[in-house]
């Protein structure tokens, strides 16, 4: 394969990765930005979205319908669970940064083992809503993967709109900037927190539903997205959505291209090195505000 086609394939793969990563990482970034909660269970919300997508697709007989149903139902279910977890667990810890880290570590185990007990240890496939293969002169490519990029971009656009143009976004930003003042202005901070946590988990679930027709749903699949999401959020700047998106694009594309041209381990080394450098030279992240 010539360099041109190779780079094209690498860019395609990198873009798909960046899109999914951006969705997952924005969720993590939101809960950190607004709530100052480092959600270690974020990857398990992603996993839960994927496993539930399989369960929903099983219950709906036709393949395109099953996928659409999963795309609508799973983020809502996962979001609702996250809402309940915030109300029942994190609020009781007063959203204390250290306590919530420990709590979400425990939560991640509970979610993982819960999925194992309820859905079993097997990798579960979900059929893509359509099968379209693009046959390029040098290689074939899945049309569904391109759909993932478009869908992720649309969802991210919606998140951006909500955060910058809607009343809910205004309230969330107000809470992020100053919790006490927001409360003084009559904002129900508890509800904002629970809503943000639910939104973050829901976004991870959207990413997962989009990815299951490519990968399979599996109870151990939450680990990698969690790690990469953290890398993206740290590089982008904790709490900055713009930074998260740009970092997701950089890390996704770098991973796609580096792992195509060199051994894939090198791509992981690059991502980890990038985090280290950012932490040393710009601890607040590329777009984060200095605390």
């Amino acid at each position: 394969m010539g360099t041109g086609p190779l780079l094209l394939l690498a860019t395609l793969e990198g873009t798909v990765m960046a899109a999914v990563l951006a969705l997952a990482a924005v969720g993590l970034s939101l809960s950190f930005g607004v709530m100052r909660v480092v959600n270690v269970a974020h990857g398990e919300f992603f996993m839960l979205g994927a496993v539930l997508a399989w369960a929903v697709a099983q219950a709906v007989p036709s393949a395109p319908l099953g996928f659409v149903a999963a795309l609508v139902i799973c983020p809502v279910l996962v979001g609702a669970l996250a809402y309940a977890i915030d109300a029942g667990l994190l609020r009781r810890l007063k959203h204390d940064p250290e306590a919530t880290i420990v709590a979400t570590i425990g939560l991640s185990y509970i979610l993982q083992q819960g999925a194992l007990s309820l859905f079993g240890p097997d990798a579960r496939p979900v059929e893509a809503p359509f099968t379209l293969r693009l046959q390029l002169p040098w290689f074939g490519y899945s049309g569904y993967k391109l759909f993932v990029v478009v869908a992720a971009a649309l969802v991210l656009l919606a998140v951006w709109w909500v955060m910058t143009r809607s009343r809910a976004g205004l309230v969330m930003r107000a809470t992020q900037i100053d919790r006490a003042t927001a409360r003084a202005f009559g904002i129900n901070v508890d509800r904002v927190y629970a809503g943000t946590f639910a939104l973050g988990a829901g976004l991870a679930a959207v990413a997962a539903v989009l990815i299951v027709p490519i990968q399979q749903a599996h109870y151990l699949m939450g680990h990698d997205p969690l790690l990469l999401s953290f890398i993206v959020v740290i590089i982008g700047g904790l709490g900055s959505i713009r930074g998260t998106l740009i970092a997701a694009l950089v890390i996704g594309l770098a991973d796609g291209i580096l792992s195509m041209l060199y051994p894939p381990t090198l791509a992981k080394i690059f991502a980890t090195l990038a985090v280290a450098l950012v932490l040393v030279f710009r601890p607040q992240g590329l777009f984060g505000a200095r605390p």
Partner: protein
Amino acid sequence: MKTLPRRSVLTGLAAGSALALGGLPRFVQAQSAAPIKLGFQLHRTGIGAAYGRWYERTAQAALALVNAQGGINGRPVEILFEDDGTDPKRGAEVVEKLTTQHGCDLIFGPLFSHVVIGSAPRAGELKVPYLVCSEGYHVASGMLNRWTLQPGITDVRAQVSSMAPWVTQTLGKRVTMVFPDYAFGHDHRDFFTEAVKAQGGEVIAQIAVPPTETSFTRYFPQIPAETEVLYHVMVGPAVLTFVKELGEFYGSGDRPQIFGFIDSLEAVDLAAPGLEFLEGTYFWEAHNRVKQADAPEWEATYRAAVGVDDNGASVSDARDVATYSHMFSVWETLFTIKKGMEAAGYQSPADRQKFVEALEAMTTFDAGLDHVQGAKVFNGKTHQVFGSQFISKVEGGKLMRVHQTSIADGQYPDAVDYTAQSF
């Protein structure tokens, strides 16, 4: 207090024991009627879960048959299953737990080579027979110990070297290999490369993929354009993604001949969407998933016992496809355990050494309901069994056998003599 007359106590005792014996008439001749306890190291969760599910079913089916035939040495047999999470560290703990806590007579059943390699040393320290169903060359290579044996399934070295002549002569001589980057994959890499070379062919690229990988498209551009045969073997929960992405990559364009290990598709339905491109490609199978026209008479009995239909899926759920080319090893290992314990006159864990020596003395296993995959030759020195391999072609979405190797095709010089090692 009223004392019981001695006579009625004795009568009651006699009646009671008669009743107990009457319930288990087949086991009366045994010196001890206590069950023989076999420990099963099971990949119930983790990346080997699909295998674990079928290994457990196969073990239960074989156990039912062994007990129906009168157990072992006239004693009933029971199996204690313990999950190792397909994790080497937990594997060693499971060996310990089954031996010291549950008092199992021996341990069998693990498949994944990293678990076997991680657990076997503990079995050796505890001096408990450890019968693996793993395919790895680690047993016959001399890497493990006298307590570890593989009497139920052939190893990768034998598999690949016996099939290399057919692959190079029928499909092509310039081969690219894609394999998982750990012990099992390295056995493939080392011995298939060597065997292809011996046939005048050449492995032109070796592409190692981490076994936990979830996305594979990035590896495919490394396949050189001049490749005549693409040899693939993959394991873990992402195998379906692997074959699907391979199909997407080649699409309707030119592609080399494809020869895969069925491991890349164990527990996966060949009719899954996206796998149409596999039509006309070849697979190694140890035991034909689809019941062949010339299947031996016991094949139907075995399939019924383990609950597999003629297409290789569960009789209760057609989407639940068996790990058919591996699970027979559990069945055959249990019947070999029975033979070994009976030859050794096994009574208690004190006889473990005698049991290993009895197995080492075995040379051949005839095909039959106890050795469903076919006849085998056992090498007591290397603790490894040898048998036939099958090559199947996907025709009309079904795996149909096109070639069968002889047992001798897979045999190679001994690398170790475990019988010379101390217990």
